């Protein structure tokens, strides 16, 4: 339908050698999504070398993980990937539940899936909104936020907080669905799908946007695997890999959904546009999952028996539990010696791995592309630095 953009060999532009310019992008820079600092060596507008520098938001996550009890650590997990706090809660709770061998009630599992998928939509909306902002399109950001506010309203309704929910608890969820909550989600989904189409018209298929993103920041599948990319970034490179399907946790094996991958519609497989497009499609898949979950949700308990907040203890052991965060594979590796506190709690943050590929893909791109590439891998600094 739309034009494909010709591939642009990076070498073409670096014929004339001039003095390199070192430039410091961040920590305070509008396009670094927080406090990432990228030192860039540039030859005119061409980036010749880039080195990300992180740690400006290091918040001692793992030290806290071995200082507070399991129950107390759940609210901290909200704050690492603050755009997808529900998914973080879920990952940690699953890891602890694996150690404690808890049975989760059916209803709680469904509520977990619903809120996680809603949060995934919110997170992707944020990602595409700020991506538009990076590329100079302001309005999609506001539209994305408008839709996101609706999700936040729904999530706030059930748990009382807008961003850091602490809703999914060890053994279940914090609260049962309020009256009318499930119906409201259906209403939201009906409202949301046409709006997503609108977003596509405004931004996704815009010629300028396609030109800015297609064939830019191409991550080949080999590179993606090598650098440990997961989530939409790996799928954007053409790998059909989704932990919800390939290593099912919770009750994801009961739902039917597709795993969208980048196919290089506008340019090459694995370019910025593909990664962006995978996120758009994933929102549609999340809508599908939520609809199925809403149909199937049973009545019943929402908390496992025998989880007492002050006296919750794990059995000794080690467990690695990964969940599919909106950004990729979020893993919690816990070592427990029995007792209330983990001996070691390690977080496998997807954004951390994604950032390390910048050194490889930024060189050769132009300055504006650098912004586009950083935006397209969708990092959250809270998670990178922990």
């Amino acid at each position, binding site marked *: 339908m739309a034009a494909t953009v010709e591939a642009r060999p990076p070498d073409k*532009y670096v014929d004339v050698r001039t003095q390199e310019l070192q430039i410091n992008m961040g920590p305070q820079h*509008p*396009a670094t999504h927080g406090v990432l600092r990228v030192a860039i060596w540039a030859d005119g507008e061409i980036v010749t070398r880039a080195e990300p520098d992180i740690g400006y938001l290091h918040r001692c996550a793992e030290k806290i993980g071995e200082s507070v009890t399991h129950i107390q650590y759940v609210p901290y997990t909200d704050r690492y990937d603050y755009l997808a706090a529900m998914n973080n809660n879920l990952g940690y709770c699953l890891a602890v539940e694996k150690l404690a061998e808890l049975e989760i009630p059916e209803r709680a599992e469904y509520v977990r899936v619903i809120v996680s998928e809603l949060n995934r939509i919110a997170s992707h909306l944020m990602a595409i909104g700020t991506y538009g902002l990076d*590329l100079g399109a*302001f*309005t999609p950001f506001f539209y994305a936020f408008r839709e996101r506010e609706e999700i936040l309203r729904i999530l706030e309704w059930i748990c009382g907080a807008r961003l850091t929910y602490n809703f999914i608890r060890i053994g279940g969820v914090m609260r049962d669905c309020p009256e009318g909550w499930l119906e409201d989600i259906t209403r939201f989904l009906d409202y949301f799908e046409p709006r997503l189409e609108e977003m596509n018209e405004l931004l996704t298929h815009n010629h*300028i946007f396609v*030109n800015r993103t297609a064939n830019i920041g191409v991550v080949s599948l080999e590179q993606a695997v090598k650098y440990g990319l997961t989530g939409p970034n790996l799928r954007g490179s053409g790998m059909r890999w989704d932990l919800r399907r390939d290593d099912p946790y919770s009750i994801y094996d009961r739902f039917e959904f597709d795993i969208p991958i980048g196919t290089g519609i506008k340019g090459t497989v694995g370019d910025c546009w593909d990664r962006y497009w995978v996120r758009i499609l994933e929102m549609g898949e999340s809508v599908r999952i939520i609809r199925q979950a809403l149909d199937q949700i049973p009545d019943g308990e929402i908390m496992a028996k025998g989880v007492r907040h002050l006296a919750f203890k794990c059995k000794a052991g080690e467990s690695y539990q990964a969940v599919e965060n909106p950004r990729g594979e979020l893993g919690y590796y816990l070592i427990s010696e029995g007792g209330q506190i983990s001996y070691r709690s390690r977080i496998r943050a997807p954004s951390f791995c994604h950032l390390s590929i910048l050194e490889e893909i930024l060189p050769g791109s*132009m300055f*504006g592309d650098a912004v586009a590439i950083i935006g397209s891998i969708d990092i959250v600094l809270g998670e990178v630095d922990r």
Partner: protein
Amino acid sequence: MERLVGALEGLGESAFALSLLMCAGVVLGFVGIWPLFAVWLERKASADFQSRLGPMYVGGFHGWLQTLADGIKLAFKEDLIPAQANRVLFWIAPAVAFCGAFATMVVIPIAQGVEIVNLDIGIFFILAISSVGTIGVVMAGWASNNKWSLYGAVREAAQLVSYEIPIALSLMIPIIAVGNLRLGHIVGFQCAGPEDAGFVYLSHHGWLLFYSPWTLAAGLIYFVASLAECKRAPFDLPEAESELVSGFHTEYSGLRFSFFFLEEYVFMFVVSIVGALVFLGGWQPLPFVSFQFDNPLMKLIGAGILLGKAVFLVWVQIWLRWTLPRLRVDQVMTMGYKYLTPLAMLTLMGMALYQYWGCRYIPGIL
């Protein structure tokens, strides 16, 4: 205004100087007031596009005093000059940039026969003087001793120099039809009618935009190139916020920054009003039907219509800005050199042939 100048001319040199000062005062006053309105318009329009409200509280009704508050704040803000900056250049750069936009106002007729100077090279003057602003921007970027500023300045220089060509070419096309560079004459051409025309009459040519397919194309090219000329999105690379922090004015604060701000909005107005004069029939409200604008009341109405058209064009610029993403720097160049310039040249040739073959009264053949 012209009459006023003429009347005062009789009083000798000092009075003439006084009259010039008065004209400068009028222009400066307009230049001062227009951005107040334009910035407010921009903020409100962007808010409307983004389903929010925009300024609401300052001044009561829909934040109409918002920009004034901004101005007061900027005026009373500390004026920073970086220690490593080139002080002289840093100091004069905003003034130079501002003068470029400011001086172009001199030749713009606001109604029939109402202009400060009726230059015979009107359009040429505007094209020439408006480039002065670029020098100011480059000075600012260089003097700031900031890499982001330098990037912004270099981008600005490259972009503006490139887009001078299509903008000049696209303005040549109506000039071919009119055969005169005076802005007043261009409008006069668009409302030229029979000798014995009454108050309302059918004009011979109508608006230049609809004069021939070539002028229509020229109008589009002019609009796109003018966006680039006044650094509006999608060509706002010199101050691309997400790439270059704030581009060439990264180091500017307070009043000096506000000069760049003013310059941008005044220049938006200038390109819009030139567009309105050249392509949209100036003060003529309808494409093919003209009115006599000879008495003062009608001139006032005409000025209102012209301003309305200019504001509309500014609004379309704003609309575009809040719709489109930004181009990349090489794409801006591509757009200028590979698309707009060749298309403008093609249009120019077409228009020349069109005039030559004398098809002017049968629009749509060529």
